């Protein structure tokens, strides 16, 4: 079940790094939970805190100007590595509702859409200028309007982005994808009956 996406007008938080992997977003030791909630405490743990557990003052999430920001702006290949959906849960638990980057890993991108975290892909030069602007004038606002498929940067520059139409509908309306798919149960039943004839060795567990 996903959270409905509402337009954002919020502080943009720059994370000027490429290949931000999901181990960095949420380290493995936080994956022992049985829940989806409460993971924000571990978000970017090794980057937010030093070995003694004290906040690193230079890390953007710790800087007062960026606190409370709900849009993260980062470098290419964001969310690479492990498939852990905990990375999305941690970002959302911390308060983020959108991530803007030049590219995302395929699995992370999917995981975002399943939870209502909007991944916005923009050309590398546009992301670069947005990160530069946010670093030059911390606290700058970023607006994200999914319905209009527009991001407005801190300098008032408007960027159009594309999004899969079905994913857009699911995000805006907070739809339950499994409930939608279950409407195709008759087709799934029919598929199994037909394929059982063609490749019976794959359906030995199904009677009849």
């Amino acid at each position, binding site marked *: *079940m996903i959270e409905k996406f509402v337009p954002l007008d919020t502080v943009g938080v720059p994370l*000027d*790094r*490429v*290949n931000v*992997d999901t*181990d*960095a977003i949420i*380290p*493995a*030791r936080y*994956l*022992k*939970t*049985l*829940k*989806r909630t409460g993971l924000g405490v571990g978000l970017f*743990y*090794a980057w937010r805190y030093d*070995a003694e557990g004290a906040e690193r003052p230079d890390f953007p999430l710790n800087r007062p100007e960026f606190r409370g920001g709900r849009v993260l702006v980062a*470098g*290419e*290949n964001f969310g*690479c*590595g*492990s*498939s*852990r*959906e905990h990375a*999305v849960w941690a970002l959302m638990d911390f308060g983020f509702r959108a991530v803007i980057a030049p*590219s995302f*890993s*395929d*699995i992370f991108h*999917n*995981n975002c859409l*399943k939870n209502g975290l909007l991944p916005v892909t923009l050309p590398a030069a546009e992301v670069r200028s947005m990160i530069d602007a946010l670093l030059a004038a911390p606290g700058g606002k970023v607006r994200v309007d999914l319905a209009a498929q527009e991001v407005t940067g801190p300098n008032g520059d408007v960027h159009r982005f594309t999004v*899969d*139409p*079905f994913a857009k509908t699911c995000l805006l309306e907070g739809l*339950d*994808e*499994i409930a939608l*798919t*279950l409407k*195709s*149960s008759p*087709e*799934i039943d029919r*598929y*199994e009956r037909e*394929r059982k004839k*063609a*490749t*019976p*060795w*794959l359906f*030995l*567990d*199904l009677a009849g």
Partner: protein
Amino acid sequence: MPTLFEKIRDRHVVTRRGDDILLYIDRQLIHEVTSPQAFEGLRLAGRSVRRPGAMLAVPDHNVPTTPGRAERIDDRESREQIEELRKNTLGAGIDLFDITDPRQGIVHIIGPEAGLVLPGITIVCGDSHTGTLGAFGTIAFGVGTSEVEHVLATQTLWQKTPRRMRVTVDGALRSLVTPKDVILAVIAKIGASGGTGYAIEFAGETIRKMSMEGRMTVCNMTIEAGARFGLIAPDETTFAYLKGRPLAPPPSLWDAAVADWETLPSDPDAAWDREVTLDASSLEPHVTWGTSPQDALPVGGVVPDPEAQPDPSERARMRRALEYMALVPGTRMTDIPVDKVFIGSCTNARIEDLRAAAAVAMGRKVHANVTALVVPGSGLVKRQAEEEGLDRVFVDAGFQWRLPGCSMCLGMNPDRLKPGERCASTSNRNFEGRQGPGGRTHLMSPAMAAAAAVSGRIADVREVAR
């Protein structure tokens, strides 16, 4: 003219919605870390598992690898996750290779051993290294927990068709150069995001000559190049591996299955969106220097200089990686000392990997400054290795011989690096903190890791084994 991927996809279409395909998923593998929330989701919505017989579960990510684990697991959260997997699978009627089962092991290793992974199937798991199973000519891919739940409830997933890349590797591998070196070289060539949006089919003489174990190593790390899917066409090597395994087609259906599988390879005139070639005949053993799997170079090389990198973003990334790794540009890779050696993981913990490492370890001693672990990929791998006497070779050389699991690949169980420790590892990711907070990872093959263990530093296995 369809590719292997397209042929498998076309036989799994349940229905369509615009560009999206509702893809039937033949099999799902389940482990303890990415499944609890999926089962919880089903419970909250009052849904059931559609096809329990298509699932197989195993605890692997956070199981201890030390004796006594069946009786007692000290870490409360790990214990609870393993207990939760037990409850969830029992409740749904899903087969579980539990911690006391001789077949327990790393999820991507136990599936093939059981004969669960057959050419032409679609198979998913809540783990990014599921691409490993593409070595059998399957559409195998990692998914998040929401998709695990979707497959449990519907036996399907909505998918877009990825772009097509073929990586052709030709030429005979030189002595002590392995499939791990091939895939590290491929990732270095196309980059950590070069495969994003693609399904990669590996082809060529070098791949054809690889065993299933070697092919799985290659497909395993496809995700480190950004591609969710790595595929290799099924052939006689595949069929010989599968024949007689518990979940392989029974004798009455075997010939029909093989006849079907022989139709799967990409047609000669299949179209590709991108083609990459690699000459394996000149390939050297590879190691990584940085914090991305793309940071691989021949072991004879030196730590690269970020200042020679023209792209500012890449320059910044390299500087940061060197700072984290505490390395100075120009240092010879073979001058880098190591504290730990880890031989294991879904990349390199199959029997051939252990044989290759043991061949180097035999008659030698682990360096006094090094702690070295060997973690077999499964109980069956462990048993076979012990039948061959490999455990004695390792123990006599000073390696620790552990119980199966993911172990120090991701540092969820007690096997972790301490801050600042440097590890020669046969695993798949050298990310910051991957093997433990502050730990530093150099990826390499099992033979190279064994050479590092006995040398106390990164070493060229060809010189150690001489």
